C-alpha cells in the first residue's frame, strides 16, 4: 500500500515539478503578488502584471542557470 501511495505521489510530483527551484520560485512569485494585492487594494489592476514580470524573470534566470550548468558539465 505504501509503495502504491509513494508511486502516486512520485507521479503527481513529477507532473508538476521538473526543477524544484523553478517550482519554489513560481510559488514565491504568487505569494509576493498576493501580498501586494492584500496590502494595497488599489494595486488590484497591476498585480497580474507584477506576477507576469516575476514569472518572466524566473524563467530567464532558471534557463540561464541551466545553460551555465550544462556548460560546466561539458567543460
Amino acid at each position, binding site marked *: 500500500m505504501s509503495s502504491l501511495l509513494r508511486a502516486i505521489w512520485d507521479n503527481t510530483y513529477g507532473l508538476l515539478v521538473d526543477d524544484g527551484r523553478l517550482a519554489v520560485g*513560481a510559488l514565491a512569485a*504568487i505569494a509576493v503578488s*498576493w501580498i501586494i*494585492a492584500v496590502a494595497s487594494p488599489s494595486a488590484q489592476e497591476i498585480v497580474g502584471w507584477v506576477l507576469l514580470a516575476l514569472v*518572466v524573470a524566473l524563467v530567464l534566470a532558471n534557463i540561464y542557470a541551466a545553460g551555465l550548468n*550544462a556548460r560546466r558539465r561539458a567543460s
Partner: protein
Amino acid sequence: MEGTLALAIAATPSFIASSVEFVEATTIVLAVGMTRGWRAPLIGAFLAVLTLAAIVAVLGVTLVTVVPEHVLQLLVGTLLLLFGLRWLRKALLRFAGIIALHDEELIYQREVRELRAQGLRKTDFDSIGMLIAYKTVLLEGTEVAFIVIAFGAASVAEMTAAISGALAAGVIVVAFAALLRHPLTMVPENWMKFVVGAMLVTFGVFWATEGIGGEWPGDAVALFPIFAVVLATSWTAVRLLRVVLPGGARVEARNV
C-alpha cells in the same frame, strides 16, 4: 452553428495539449501490441481509461461544485503555472539543443527492443504487456485529466469544452495510430509541447491573478498580451542559451 464554433474554439487548448499526451501513450501501447499481441495491452489501456474517468469525475466535479470560486481560481492557476513552467522549460532546453528532442520513433524502437528481450510464452496471459499499457495510459492520461481539469475548472461550460477537446484528441490520435500501425512521428510534438507550455503558463498567470483578487483589464482579452509576453520570453531564453552554450546539441548534458 455559432454554439458549435464557440465550443470548438474553447476546446482547442485542451485538444492540442491532450494530443501530445495521447501520441506518447499510443506509441507505447503500439509497441506492446505489435510485439506481444493486442489482447493484454488493450485490456490494460481500457482499465486505465476507466481509472482516469473516475479521477476526472470525482476531482473535476468536486472542484467545480464544492470549492469556492476564488480558491478554485488560485488552486487552478497555481497548478497550471507549475505544470506549464515544467513543459516550457523542457521545450526551451530542447530548442536550444541542451536536451534531446522528443523522438517517438526512437522511443518506439527502444520499447520494442526491450519487450522482445523479455520474451513471452504463447499460452500465458501477457500480464507484463497489460501492466505496461495500464501504467503508460494511466500516467499520460493523468496528464490529460490534469489538462482537462485545469482548462475546464473555471465553469461547467469550460469543463464541457475541455472534455470535448480531450476526447476529440483521443479519438483522432487512436484512429490514426490504428490505421497506420506506426507511431505518429509526423506530429510536430516538440513544437506542440512548446506551444502547450506557453499556453499553460499564460492561463496559470491569468487564473492565479484572479484567485488572489487581482483584475485584468478587458478580462479574458488579457490572455493575448500575456501569451505574447510568454512567447517573447521564450524567444529571449533560447537566444540566451545559444549565447551561453554555442555548442548546443553537442553538449552531453542531460540533467541540467
